[in-house]
């Protein structure tokens, strides 16, 4: 458990009309009265639109939109690893560190990336541009070593590819979300 999880972070909430339209579309996928089922997809959409993390205030807002209790949102946000409860690096390099990726050298590659960015795992760069994380199996074992960056996978990684990705992120050439 990260100790800074208890620190209270705030963010500006902005549910745009487009976002609301998408939320309503997601709710329409479920029968009347079962709108709670849309919680996970809605949280993804809301998180994507808010620098990839969910403050308590934002979670309360989601509860209000779905007409459920805030605790029902907190329960879900704390259970699933993809929901972030604190501000995170804009470009989060999430390396798969499960067995098949380890057989293909992901641990050395993570060390290399951390060293290059001057960070430790789970610690964003001071400018909040980058963060490195180790995650569990991403289901791309045959294309190892690999990582997730935004909505996409970066596979068959090498040190040279990491260098290139960091440069591309800095140059704003990397698309994070598939909208």
């Amino acid at each position, binding site marked *: 458990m990260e100790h800074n999880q208890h620190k209270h972070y705030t963010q500006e909430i902005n549910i745009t009309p487009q976002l609301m339209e998408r939320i309503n579309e997601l709710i329409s*996928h479920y*029968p009347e009265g*079962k709108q*709670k*089922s*849309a*919680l*996970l*997809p809605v*949280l*993804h959409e809301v998180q994507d639109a808010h620098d990839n993390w969910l403050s308590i205030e934002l979670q309360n807002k989601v509860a209000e939109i*779905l007409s*459920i209790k805030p605790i*029902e949102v907190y*329960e*879900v946000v704390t*259970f*699933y*690893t*993809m*929901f972030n409860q604190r501000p995170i690096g804009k470009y989060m390099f999430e390396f798969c*560190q*499960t*067995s*098949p990726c*380890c*057989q*293909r050298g992901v*641990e*050395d590659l993570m060390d290399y990336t951390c060293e290059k960015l001057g960070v430790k795992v789970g610690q964003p760069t001071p400018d909040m541009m980058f963060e490195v994380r180790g*995650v*569990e*199996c*991403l*289901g*791309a*074992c*045959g*294309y*190892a070593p690999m990582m*997730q960056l935004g*909505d*996409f996978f970066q596979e068959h990684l090498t040190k040279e590819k990491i260098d290139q990705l960091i440069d591309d992120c800095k140059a704003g050439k990397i698309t994070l979300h*598939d909208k």
Partner: protein
Amino acid sequence: MGRKILLDKINVPGIKTYEVYRREGGYSSVEKALKSLSPDEVVEEVKTSGLRGRGGAGFPVGMKWSFIDKKSGNPRHLVCNADESEPGTFKDRYLMEYIPHLLIEGMIVSSYALGANLSYIYIRGEYMWVYKTLERAIAEAKAAGWLGKNILGTGYDLEVHVQIGGGAYICGEETALIESLEGKRGNPRLKPPFPAVKGLWQNPTVVNNVESISAVPWIINNSGADYAAIGKERSTGTKLISASGNIKKPGVYEIELGLSVYEFMNSDEYCGGMETDRPLKALVPGGSSVPILPAHLIYKTANGDDRLMTYESLSDGGFATGSMLGSGGFIVYDDRACIVRNTWNFSRFYHHESCGQCTPCREGTGWLEKVLWRIENGEGREEDIELLWSIQSKIEGNTICPLGDAASWPVAAAIRHFRDEFEYHIRFPEKVKNRNHFVTEPFEKVKHLVVKQEI
């Protein structure tokens, strides 16, 4: 060349789009089923095919379908399990990413068989771009009249939606998946009642894997008997194998069940042999949960028979000398792999993924991880191997869902087959401080150090 049922069209340019998929004969099984077969006839055809659940458990699909409660009159649902997260497994993504309409076609025919009018595909959160691919494909199918009201004028209505998860392996367990689909934490339910009676929103529900549902169109277009003619004994049809680790050609392969493990490993059509021609050390044949096999039990069973890629042959010898076909997550290890480190890696995975409902799993997986970590880091104690054995034996069978078993089996198998490697770590702590210890000096070279000491 083995026969291809699922992947025969995957390399057709543009097959991802509706137009090309349709031109190649796509959706013909929907026409055939809805216009000329009753739902029960579709179920019978799938029963005849002998198709077994491709997610890992291998339960016959047709039989699972026949359990669905039709008497209550409650709405029924088909839910496709696309929460592929078993380490070593990446086959479902391959299907959904490159030929998404095959799954949708299978969803329509299968939903028709079950009498379901509202079905879902639950996909893991990390496959976000595949989720979008499926959403687009569903919209295309709907625009072409394969979904919606009164499909093909037959009076059958069906809506299919994709639901995205949030990053939790446990949601691959069917009742946890249903909880998650209801917008809750992925805590598995106590069974009974089974989902076939009380599933999604307490309605009768069938949960099937992507690969199982994708096999249905071929079965309907041809016949259950044709499908059953492929394969060997009770392992009928074809299976996707996701091959990874130290092999020349990692990737997803469709095999006819019954192929020998030797051929799959070494033929150029499949894995192409070992990555750098180093010796084969171990194999996890069916995803991280199944027992690991040492080199001498991979190509031959304990009886000396050829080991085949079938449910039966891979489990030949039980857990003492066999393993399981599982999800088809085929992970190959060469002599540089450290079995202790690998077992620790798997235990960390299960600890991380335990939902926390059952004490033996919540606590036990953490203890396994901790003890394995200290052995791997040269801080192991003489009694640790017995301790690991004791912990795993107390998790197995004592939890609501099979995650507890899945966490126990890899540890038990590693100790059973590679005990000397654990002893080496405990007795020569200085030699294992560097995490790549066997990369520079494979265990084979230092094995002689672990001999029973004379008293």
